[in-house]
């Protein structure tokens, strides 16, 4: 915005000067055309600067119109046209600025509202380190049909990664219903199974019949992780040389369709990382239609560096794979346990 303002302001001044000089030394009259410089300025500059260029142009109109003896009626007409043009250009610029300010306000409100759904994660909780990346498939939106949350509770750190059916903005209300239900239940329910049950009933109350959400819940206590998988893609443990997919012994339905998952237990040894994601990641396609190879990419990106660096690398790989166009929302959440000395 600043840059466009500078360019149109200087461009306007230059154009006015150029046309005035052509008029001064050439045989044709360009007096009326001086208005072009003012209009150029009004494209992006504030009213104050438009008026400034207008005054400069008007000075030339007066100077060029006066040939030492008298003003003709023709000159007077041009003068009036240029003045009228300048006034309109200033008004247009003021209106544009007003709309721009309103847009910025709206964008700020939208951002704050979206942040209320997806709160930034704490990087540490005791010896647990975590990081998350979220991509919305809706252009210009921060949120979509995926949701995450992490709550420090008296039963340990509880984490939710969820994906409601549908994606982008049309799924935001369902995703927020789920996230808020988790936020509440995580602090009041003694077991993960109860958290899922509470989310199930809360979700069913507020969505259409047959709407559902796949979800993965974690409860992390030191190096021990309990996992409740509600119809969600299997999380992965990243070892030094291989990726281990954690399939539950029996699959559970997604939330909204009567989910009752059996818990999995995992000891997350230091140096190993747990990756939880939504299917937007594994189903991301390149322009030719092939899927993102998470196993290969995870080994390439996730083993080394800090968690943040690792996820950044994964997102860069994803971006390159999809050529920047996402069809579904994506969450990638990584956690590791580093015992304090």
């Amino acid at each position, binding site marked *: 915005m600043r840059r466009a303002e500078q360019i149109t302001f200087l461009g306007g001044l230059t154009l006015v000067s150029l046309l005035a000089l052509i008029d001064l030394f050439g045989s044709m009259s360009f007096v009326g055309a001086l208005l072009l410089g003012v209009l150029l300025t009004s494209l992006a500059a504030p009213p104050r600067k438009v008026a400034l260029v207008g005054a400069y142009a008007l000075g030339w109109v007066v100077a060029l119109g006066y040939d030492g003896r008298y003003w003709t009626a023709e000159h007077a007409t041009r003068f009036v046209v240029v003045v009228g043009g300048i006034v309109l250009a200033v008004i247009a610029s003021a209106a544009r600025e007003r709309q721009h300010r309103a847009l910025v306000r709206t964008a700020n409100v939208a951002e704050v509202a979206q942040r209320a759904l997806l709160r930034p994660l704490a990087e540490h909780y005791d010896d647990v380190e975590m990081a998350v990346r979220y991509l919305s498939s809706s252009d210009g939106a921060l949120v979509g049909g995926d949701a995450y949350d992490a709550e420090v509770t008296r039963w340990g750190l509880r984490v939710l990664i969820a*994906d*409601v*059916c*549908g*994606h982008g903005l049309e799924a935001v209300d369902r995703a927020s219903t789920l996230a808020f239900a988790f936020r509440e239940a995580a602090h009041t329910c003694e077991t993960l199974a109860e958290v899922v049950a509470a989310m199930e009933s809360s979700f069913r109350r507020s969505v259409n*019949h*047959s*709407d*559902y959400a*796949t979800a993965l819940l974690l409860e992390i206590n030191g190096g021990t992780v309990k996992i409740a998988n509600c*119809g*969600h*893609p299997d999380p992965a443990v990243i070892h030094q040389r291989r990726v281990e997919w954690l399939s539950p012994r*029996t*699959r*559970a*339905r*997604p939330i909204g*369709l009567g989910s009752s998952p059996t818990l999995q237990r995992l000891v997350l040894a230091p140096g190993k990382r747990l990756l939880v994601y939504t*299917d937007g990641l594994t*189903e991301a*396609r390149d*322009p030719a*239609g092939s899927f993102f190879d998470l196993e290969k990419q995870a080994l390439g990106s996730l083993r080394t560096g800090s968690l943040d660096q690792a996820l950044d690398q994964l997102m860069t790989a994803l971006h390159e794979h999809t050529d920047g166009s996402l*069809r*579904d929302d994506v969450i990638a959440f990584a956690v590791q346990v580093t015992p304090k000395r």
Partner: protein
Amino acid sequence: MSAVFRVHVETLDPRHLYVEGELDIHSRSKLDEALAEAGPFQDVTLDLSGVTFIDSTGLNLLLVADQAHRNGGSRLVLFEPSTEVARLIDLTALRPRLIVETADHRASGRDPGPASS
């Protein structure tokens, strides 16, 4: 990347829809229309052997349609789901909730549908 999507309607015996291509947010309206035409008051067989991709929107459509048929006193049979469809149905543990049939399973032993292999 655009969805290749076709729906064939055979008017013989139960209505038989053959779905081919990608069943996701971009193509669901086509299947919606085809299902609406058949209506929820008669059994409909949905041949899913040619589905190359299905996402949560597609599965949601199947759930909604299944419920509509149950409410209408009829059955929506998901016939020969492709690997992709079967994978999602199993990941979400929804096989017992839906009516899924395969060619070997069918008492009538009828033709498994066009170009399923």
